[in-house]
């Protein structure tokens, strides 16, 4: 098949773009996670602000990614930085929402018991609430990651890094030799990255799982 021939011929390039894609997504999700979890923690005592932030970040998600990526050009020019910023914006909502859901889902009796033991609010958060909410938070990060893997492909319109470049190169030369192979290998690469990162998150979830929650 021509596709396989193309992919083996351009293996170096594809591997490079795949690595770039993974890096791009992980950096963006990292930023999203810091912002999302941070906002959830900072709005502990202001539920209305928290609600507002959830609405806001949820609404940001409805903005077509092409428009957001394009708007980055006048602000930040072309390249890696605008791509990361736009992706990080999209990643906030799922992480913020799951962090809020996770924290609110912790049994109030357990928190109350921790209070009874004389734990300070910060200590309660660190040793009781966050560990118990962690599976839900992690799932939010995973959701954001899978979403960004696909969205990152569009980053190529602002000359962002990653496998989107393959797709757009194919698009530019539509009808030309290897155009379809380029586009397809880009798509396959993106799916592959999503799969790898999904497995990564399953592994993280397994490793970080609290033993007490899973023993029978």
């Amino acid at each position, binding site marked *: 098949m021509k596709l396989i021939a193309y992919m083996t011929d351009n293996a170096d390039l594809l591997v490079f773009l795949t690595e770039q894609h993974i890096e791009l997504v992980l950096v963006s999700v990292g930023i999203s996670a810091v912002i999302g979890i941070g906002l959830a923690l900072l709005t502990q005592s202001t*539920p209305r602000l*928290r*609600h507002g932030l*959830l*609405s806001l970040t*949820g*609404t940001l*998600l*409805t*903005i*077509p*990614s*092409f*428009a*957001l990526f*394009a*708007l980055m*050009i*006048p602000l930040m020019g072309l390249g890696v930085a605008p791509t990361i910023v736009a992706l990080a914006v*999209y990643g906030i*909502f*799922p992480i913020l*929402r*799951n962090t*809020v*859901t996770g924290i*609110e889902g912790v049994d109030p009796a357990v928190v109350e018991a921790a209070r009874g033991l004389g734990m300070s609010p910060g200590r309660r958060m660190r040793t009781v609430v966050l560990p118990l909410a962690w599976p839900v938070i992690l799932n939010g990060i995973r*959701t*954001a990651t*899978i*979403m*960004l*893997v*696909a*969205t990152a*492909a*569009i980053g190529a*319109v602002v000359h962002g890094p990653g496998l*989107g470049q393959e*797709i*757009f190169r*194919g*698009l530019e030369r*539509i009808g030309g030799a290897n*155009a*379809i192979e380029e*586009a*397809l290998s*880009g*798509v396959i690469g*993106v*799916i592959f990255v*999503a*799969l790898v990162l*999904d497995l990564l998150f399953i592994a993280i979830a397994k490793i970080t799982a609290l033993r007490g929650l899973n023993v029978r």
Partner: protein
Amino acid sequence: MSTAAVEEVPAPGTRRSTTWVLPLVVLILLGAVWAYVHSLRMDSIEARSLAAEVVLTALWQHVQLVVASTLLTIAIGVPLGVLLTRPRTRRAGAVVLAAANASQAVPSIGVLVVLAMVFGVGFWMAVVALVLYALLPVLRNTMVGIRQVDPALIDAGRGMGMSPTEVLCTIELPLAVPVMLAGIRVALILNVGVATLAAFTNAGGLGSVISSGISLDRMPVLIVGSALTMALALTVDWLAGLAERVLRPRGI
């Protein structure tokens, strides 16, 4: 845009309750664009790209793409979802659901580009790509919506002598409506987003304004295109939210 984040059952407090905020934001956005365009001294290229006729045509194409693809998505996704929850097809349903979930990882631009390469470009090819991409949330939510109906209600319905079709029409479908509507809303938002990419396959839409801004290196064109796209997306989301509220059966 991807489906993953919006489609799950909303956490408490995420349902947008203030209905006037979004239209206000849209109005401010449009006002800002208008003021911005009128403050510019445009060169001939910009003037041509931002002529009212050009922009409105793009907007109209965009709306057509979204409406056509969303209607088709519903027309295919809902009956298919219902079919896949019938007792005989339950197994197939599980397989389809798993496959549909996995297909989330496929990038929308990839679907569009590869389809264009294989089947050609243009409005209807773009619609096909949009439908393929937006089918998942509608199909999935229809199935999930029907499956989450309390089995006791179905038992009560069967027990009082409803035929399977009557159970479907008076119990399962009405009770699945909220979840189905949420799926349709996600599909709608996805379609607005992916339709911007249809510009790359000669199907027009607001994406063509943005991409001409990029390729001509004219920031005003790009900014106007992006802002209008955002305004359209927010408006559609707002309308979808209103529709969701109106169409939701009372008592649930």
